[in-house]
């Protein structure tokens, strides 16, 4: 059980700045996801917490204790790698028990502890096999079991589900979340999959180009993306982002040669928006209503494609040079004419300035 604090962490590899001025606090028992595209510094941040990388500057505290200069083995963390790092020459029993063996636990005590953990994770049938004889999902559980047996203060996960197929990944997500609740351990989880981060984490840290872009609960991040990067990264499909210009009482959607206007009477426009200013309008696919006839404040578009996803369906509409996605909570999109009209739910609009930051 431990809290973690990162203070102004910085790490460079040659000329590449991998992590730049990252500060973050993680509460005891919290499940935090570091989310971002590849190369955003999330894995480097995780590796600095583990002690496998040393920061160029900044400090790391675990339970209030400065561990910045401690080697990995003295930090009392457990890590699950993307490739699971199971030792091929050891049985599953030996693999899971290795943290205990290193500490000099007797053979009998080791076997008993491993069996208890393995039974809990439903892999007790596999203990005499070798990693090569296990499926990906089983290997993943063994890697987690090895971390559990370690009884470390902190769990670190480096994209542990990305080698699994889609179905197993969903299973493993539920399993990991359940396990973390049960053990009540502090966990830091690196992923590039926003759905995984949403599903697992108590708190999501969105990273980009070595820095933190936004921190919040999954719902906060989803409901109030602080900038266009987060807006376009979170949600599946992500938010529609439209370049717009304010023109008197009209809002112009700048879609190449097909600029259309909608009234702003019912919109809560940020005060910083003045006539003529350009900005980005964000709206989630589920907050656009699709009409077959023109209504007040609708914009006209051409049907591009429809996608049936089973429980819901997506309609993609082309407006000028923009593609706008609309989510319908019905299993199949109704037959639609070539020309459709889009009506934005004005309560759910986001306004981003030209720097990409949300406008209050």
């Amino acid at each position, binding site marked *: 059980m431990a809290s973690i604090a990162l203070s102004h962490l910085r790490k460079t590899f040659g000329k590449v700045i991998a992590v730049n001025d990252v500060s973050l606090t993680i509460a005891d028992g919290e499940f935090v996801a570091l989310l971002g595209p590849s190369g955003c510094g999330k894995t480097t941040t995780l590796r600095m917490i*583990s*002690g*496998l990388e040393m920061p160029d500057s900044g400090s790391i505290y675990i339970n209030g204790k400065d561990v910045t200069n401690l*080697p*990995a*083995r*003295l*930090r009392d*963390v*457990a*890590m699950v*790698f*993307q*490739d699971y*790092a199971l*030792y*091929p*020459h*050891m049985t599953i029993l030996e693999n899971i028990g*290795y*943290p205990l*063996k*290193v*500490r000099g636990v007797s053979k009998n005590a080791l076997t008993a502890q491993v069996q208890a953990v393995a039974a809990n994770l439903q892999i007790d049938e596999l203990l005499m096999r070798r990693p090569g004889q296990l499926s990906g999902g089983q290997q993943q559980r063994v890697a987690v079991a*090895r971390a559990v047996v*370690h009884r470390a203060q902190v769990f*670190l996960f480096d994209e542990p589900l990305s080698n699994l197929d889609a179905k197993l990944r969903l299973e493993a997500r539920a399993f990991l979340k359940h396990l973390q609740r049960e053990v009540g351990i502090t966990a830091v989880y690196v992923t590039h999959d926003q759905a995984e981060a949403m599903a697992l984490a108590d708190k999501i840290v969105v990273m980009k180009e070595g820095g933190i872009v936004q921190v919040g609960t999954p719902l906060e991040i989803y409901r109030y993306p602080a900038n266009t990067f987060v807006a376009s990264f979170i949600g599946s499909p992500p938010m529609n982002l439209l370049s717009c210009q304010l023109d008197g009482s009209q809002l112009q959607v700048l879609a190449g040669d097909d600029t259309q206007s909608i009234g702003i009477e019912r919109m809560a426009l940020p005060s910083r928006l003045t006539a003529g200013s350009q900005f980005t309008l964000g709206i989630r696919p589920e907050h656009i209503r699709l009409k077959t006839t023109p209504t007040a404040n609708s914009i006209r578009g051409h049907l591009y494609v429809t996608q049936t996803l089973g429980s819901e369906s997506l309609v993609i509409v082309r407006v000028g040079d923009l593609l706008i996605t609309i989510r319908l909570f019905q299993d199949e999109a109704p037959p639609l004419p070539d020309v459709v009209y889009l009506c934005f739910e004005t309560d759910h609009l986001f306004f981003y300035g030209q720097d990409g930051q949300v406008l209050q």
Partner: protein
Amino acid sequence: MQKAVLSRKLSLLFLTPALVFVALFLVYPFFSIFQMSFTNRALVGANALNPQNVGLQNYMDLFDTQDWMRRGEMGHSLWLTAQFVIGSALIGQAGLGLGIAVAFHNRKGLLRELVFTLAIAAWIMPDVVVAFAWFAYLDPDGTLNQMLQAVGLRPQDWLFDYPLLSIILFNTWRGTAFSMLLFSSALASIPPSYVETADVIGARPWQKFRDILLPLLRGYIATDLILITLWTFNTFTPFLLTGGGPSYRSNIIAIYTYEVGLRFFQFGKASAIAVIVMLINLVLASIYLFISRSRQRQIA
């Protein structure tokens, strides 16, 4: 099964040059030596023109229990060879090579480049050049003694007083690069996460070596040991340093064979030695094949 690209006839045609070469330079000498080992053939004298069949006489001479361990006889020579192989190949080359490879595992930098470059340089230089350099190095007035004197130690006549130790050190220096390269490329194939997991778990360096690196290297070590054992067993280069002496004290088996055959021109006896050496090599190679096959079975 894939269909063969060439017809059987055509493929035989392509194989012919290689088969002729192998027959001429490998199969024929093998059988002719085998046959010669039962004769008293020599370069000069009556037996040169009319070699006679002496049956197992050559072999009985070699294994004569009375003389067997005397200096300059085969038993003594095999004993020296065993020390030479264990000292310079197993402990020296493999041990040092493994040590260097593990020490520089996952490391970069000038020191690694320097050590690797020096080791490889020692490995690729021509025998005669290297032997001459070591001759100068170990000479009573040589570099080593001058260095010893500079730090106040007594100089030694290395090649005279410690001939076996000298050639062991020489062969270690000469051949470590092979083991080092083999082990470091084997280590490079181990995923970094294996060692990192152990780091996070809290394993000490020696635990990581014993529990993770060594077991994963086991197959490579077996391959390396057999190869360098065979090479060291058959090497002739130490002759350039000590000539097998003084008074046969570095008379390893390759030098012994040379002496009997090409100095005393007892072709029959030398052939018998060659046959025995071949049998020893065959046993070593069989062990190697056995180990590497059982390794493959383990993987499959």
